[in-house]
């Protein structure tokens, strides 16, 4: 027989997973505990990472007499906290402006080539290939890309043909959005099976049934008690 040792981390994992599922029934106290624990842990973890990051990438090099320009970055970072004062709130805009400016600049540096030029070039496909399926694929890509671009560019053009092309563009968009929606639903299923693979794992399942039953009893009592007391 398998020897079991008490595992607090596993018990907490099982409890928090089941607590999240109580939301299916209603927004219970268990759900609130799970929600607050998750938010608290995430924020705490993020804060520790950020402090550690500032310490290793800025404070240590500055104290070692190198990378003095980082002092400017630290000041701009501290200026973001001026958001909490109505009088000095304007100071936070400087830090925010640098953040947004650098972020946009870094992305824009390559976005034209990465997501416009290269994608456009990939659409210039031979309409007749050696493989008949490849031929069909190429024709579909070219026609559907053109139809979708037409749909967005010539929104007001009259005429039967223009209308048909726009319709094809719309169907292409619908097919793409449908595929994304379907994939999203199925991804949620993966998360669900992932959680239940954990809960029904060889060790976690010993905690699953007692914890689940205890939670159901507490939820039932929590529901019943106010009614009983109101009858009295």
């Amino acid at each position: 027989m398998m020897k079991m040792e008490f595992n607090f981390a596993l018990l907490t994992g099982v409890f928090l997973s089941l607590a999240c599922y109580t939301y299916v029934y209603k927004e219970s106290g268990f759900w609130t505990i799970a929600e607050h624990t998750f938010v608290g842990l995430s924020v705490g973890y993020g804060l520790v990472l950020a402090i550690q990051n500032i310490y290793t990438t800025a404070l240590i090099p500055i104290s070692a007499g190198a990378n003095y320009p980082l002092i400017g970055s630290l000041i701009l970072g501290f200026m973001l906290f001026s958001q909490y004062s109505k009088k000095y709130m304007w100071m936070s805009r400087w830090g925010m402006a640098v953040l947004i400016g650098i972020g946009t600049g870094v992305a824009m540096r390559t976005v034209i080539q990465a997501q416009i030029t290269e994608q456009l070039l990939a659409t210039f496909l031979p309409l007749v290939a050696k493989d008949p399926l490849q031929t069909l694929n190429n024709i579909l890509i070219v026609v559907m890309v053109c139809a979708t671009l037409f749909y967005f560019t010539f929104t007001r053009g009259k005429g039967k043909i223009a209308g048909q092309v726009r319709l094809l563009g719309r169907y292409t968009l619908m097919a793409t959005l449908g595929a994304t929606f379907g994939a999203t639903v199925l991804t949620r299923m993966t998360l669900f099976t992932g959680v239940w693979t954990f809960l029904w794992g060889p060790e976690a399942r010993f905690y699953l049934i007692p914890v689940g039953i205890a939670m159901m009893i507490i939820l039932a009592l929590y529901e019943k008690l106010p009614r009983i007391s109101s009858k009295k």
Partner: protein
Amino acid sequence: MGFDAGGEAPTVQETMVMPAVDRALGRFGAQYGVDYVNLGWVAGLESGEAAFVNNIRSVVTQDFRGKPIDELPIMKGVNTGKDFQFVIHIGYAEDPIRQYVTAFKLPLVVATWGMMGPHYPPYIEAGQMIGLIVGMPGAAEYELLIGMKGEGLKGSDALSMTHLMVATFCILGNVYYFGWKAAGRKRKE
């Protein structure tokens, strides 16, 4: 060399990815710090990724375990994207395409969750990505391909059953809808 520009991954790397890498590379006698390393978190999302590939030492001074990177043999002579040969990215693919592929012409493989699957094949067609693993089915296929059966294959049966369940409910929903419509038409007649 592993690093994260998101925020939640360093611990995931240390508790899940690194033990798996230890197990996989351990067979070939690979060692931490010599053949692989976890550089932890780099702030700034895409800006952080760009800074990392332009000058690693400007954003990382020590690894996730607190050891200065200049003391690690794997980091000798490695400081920019030009020193990399290959990138495996887990998550959204747009940032690495812009910062690693377009800027440094690095070959990129992406492992992403299922919902992003329909968006990324155009990048493969354009040659900006050389491989794509989508969700658990993709992980299962990859495990089968390399002959290392693991969590992906283990979860595939359960996933197939849930997919079957979703498909059944879709069919039942449509049957009910069209039946209800036909019944309404009959009532009108």
